[in-house]
């Protein structure tokens, strides 16, 4: 009920914005009129300014990397150990880059061919993944195949268009993004195939589609279709699942799949998911406990070069289960924790460092973020600020069970940003673990965290009752005895009053 009310509130608010009433969706500095680079959403969905969570360390262009041939429409990034692989799609090559430090990347080798196959060059490679054994998996989009190469770039296998009766025979197979699990099973997205992820067994056989997006339709739409003519029906949107745009295999083997081809209405009505966490069965196991749904900006007002909902084009997952979604439409990065709370949001469209024109891929080294922009042909390296580092520290300490340290880190965070809801809840959770229930309750109440408040309150109530059991019993007995006593006295009085005692006789 609460959620419904809040969604409604958000819709009303955004329609107000959409209809052109000058009510800015983003927190503006009243002095300079500048929009805060990093922000967060509070309980009410209001945008709250935040100190920077990530800051640009360096932007690497072709010349910074020392490449003779300039990058052309690069589309894929993959990190393995301290090596970064960049798919230079327009130049049909893959570039291996070594990370020396956050501000220093060095090209190791440029791979534009391999050994052991007839067609030994790439044609528009869009993505690369590396298995635990060091084998390369490359989505060779133009050649309609996914390649499996050994660490020395010898051909091992190729995965071709799946043999499936439901697929259109005329459709050309265009694998665009892929992920590999520990057993070298390949999960692949191909343009024009919307049945979910294409799953191949390690020996190259196609084993099925997993995790198709949910298909929804209105009953009204259905009725319209019933009565429409053939021609009209062809004009209408068909109820088909949307294609995924990108996938990422996290350290636990779950596939994060994001899609941007969803409408604002479907997102608002909870009919479509911008991002899903898919397990081996193909089910969505994303935890959505945050106050706001996971689809980037909840205020989608247009203006200032921004229009429409966020379009998630890539995602990366840190070992602490925080996942960062890259928004191609609004040029932003959104970080969410494992419960689906928004941890940070930053970025924007533009040409300055830290702003993007068409970001397509995101990866991470430790806590650094690397964002690839396909129009700028540049990799932007972000490093966490002191504030960001503290938040990560607090979350990681908590996950490791060091609750007191976590609480202290959250207090530091709160000193830097008093509008950060997660800090209050973090301190509360730390206090809750330390069995300081009353204090924890205060922190939860400030940020309307009813679930955690209830947990703390339950314990507090139990403690209180145990401590005051004597008083409670006395009060209860008194409640029984006093009315009884009064009744007794009254009846005695009454009897005395009506007693017909003849004093004179005795």
């Amino acid at each position, binding site marked *: 009920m609460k959620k419904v009310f809040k969604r409604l509130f958000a819709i009303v608010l955004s329609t107000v914005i959409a209809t052109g009433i000058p009510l800015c969706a983003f927190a503006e500095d009243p002095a300079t009129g500048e929009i805060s680079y990093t922000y967060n959403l509070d309980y*009410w969905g209001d945008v709250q300014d935040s100190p920077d969570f990530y800051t640009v360390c360096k932007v690497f262009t072709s010349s910074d990397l020392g490449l003779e041939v300039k990058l052309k429409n690069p589309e894929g990034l993959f990190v393995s150990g301290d090596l970064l692989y960049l798919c230079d799609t327009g130049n049909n090559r893959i570039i291996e880059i070594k990370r020396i430090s956050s501000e220093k990347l060095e090209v190791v080798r440029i791979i534009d061919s391999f050994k052991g196959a007839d067609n030994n060059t790439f044609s528009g490679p869009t993505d690369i993944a590396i298995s635990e054994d060091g084998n390369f998996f490359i989505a060779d989009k133009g050649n309609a195949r996914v390649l499996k190469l050994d660490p020395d770039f010898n051909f091992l296998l190729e995965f071709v268009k799946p043999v499936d009766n439901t697929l259109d025979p005329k459709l050309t197979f265009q694998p665009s993004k892929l992920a590999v699990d520990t057993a070298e099973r390949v999960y692949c997205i191909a343009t024009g195939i919307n049945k979910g992820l294409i799953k191949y067994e390690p020996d190259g056989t196609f084993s099925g589609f997993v995790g198709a997006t949910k298909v929804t339709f209105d009953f009204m739409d259905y009725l319209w279709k019933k009565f429409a003519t053939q021609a009209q029906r062809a004009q209408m949107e068909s109820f088909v699942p949307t294609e995924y745009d990108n996938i990422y295999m996290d350290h636990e083997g779950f596939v994060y799949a994001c899609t941007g081809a969803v409408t604002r209405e479907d997102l608002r009505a909870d009919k479509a998911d911008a991002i899903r966490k898919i397990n081996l069965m193909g089910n969505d196991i994303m935890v959505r406990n945050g106050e706001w749904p996971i689809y980037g900006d909840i205020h989608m007002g247009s203006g200032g070069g921004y229009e429409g909902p966020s379009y998630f084009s890539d995602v990366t997952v840190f070992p602490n289960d925080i996942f960062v979604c890259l928004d191609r439409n609004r040029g932003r990065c959104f970080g969410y924790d494992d419960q689906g709370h928004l941890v940070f949001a930053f970025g924007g469209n533009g040409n300055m460092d830290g702003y993007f024109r068409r970001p397509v891929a995101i990866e991470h080294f430790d806590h650094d973020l690397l964002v690839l922009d396909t129009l700028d042909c540049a990799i932007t390296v972000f490093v966490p600020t002191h504030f960001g580092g503290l938040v990560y520290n607090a979350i990681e300490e908590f996950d490791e069970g060091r609750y007191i340290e976590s609480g202290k880190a959250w207090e530091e965070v709160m000193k830097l940003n008093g509008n950060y809801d997660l800090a209050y809840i973090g301190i509360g959770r730390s206090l809750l673990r330390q069995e300081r229930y009353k204090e924890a309750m205060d922190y939860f109440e400030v940020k*309307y965290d*009813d679930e955690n*408040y*209830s947990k703390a309150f*339950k314990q507090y*109530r139990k403690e209180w009752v145990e401590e005051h059991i004597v008083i409670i019993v006395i009060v209860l007995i008194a409640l029984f005895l006093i009315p009884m006593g009064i009744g007794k006295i009254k009846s005695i009085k009454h009897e005395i009053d009506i007693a017909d005692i003849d004093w004179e006789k005795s």
Partner: protein
Amino acid sequence: MITALTRKETWNRYFDSLKFALYIMTHPLDGFWDLTHEKRGTYAAANTILILTIMARLMRLRFTSFIFVQVYWEEVNIFLYIGSILFPLALWVIGNWALTTLFDGKGRLGQVYMATCYGLAPYPIIQFPLMIFSNFVTVEEGQFYSVLSVISLIYCAVWIVVGMGQIHEFSAGKNLLFTVASLFAMLVMIFILMIFFSMVSQGVFYIISLVREFLFRL
């Protein structure tokens, strides 16, 4: 006036009529009949119940646990909030009276108001304890709160409808029919009010622009 207030009988009658609201809560048919026909109710008591209802409604915002009621304080306008109770009440009273008076309704305008206010009595009586109760429960036990809260509203609605039937001396069927008709009358009144206000604002703008035009030509 002041002499009346100092007299003990005035106060006794006021408290008796206020206590009568409790009787009505358990005996709606008898209670509402006696309210007007036996003159057991007073306007003072009706007003008191109305004020208590509004207070319950307002205090709920502040004193209910945040688990059940979250208030975006920046947006709260206390006068609008009070108006959101008084305005529908006024519409209901006037709409009901205007309709029933044409169809053999025995109740007068004041009596309709009095009965409606007496019908609201369950709301503060349930809501005030509920407000205190809400601060001693967790989310899991929150169902009690929600259920009781809904009960208090249904209680009021049923009692008001029953009250109207007794005031106007209607049969059950006719009563229900006129309840629906009154709700419809409320909509019509809102519609007319909206037309009225937009007409007035149009008229005012017309005069303003006329005066402006004159000032330009002078």
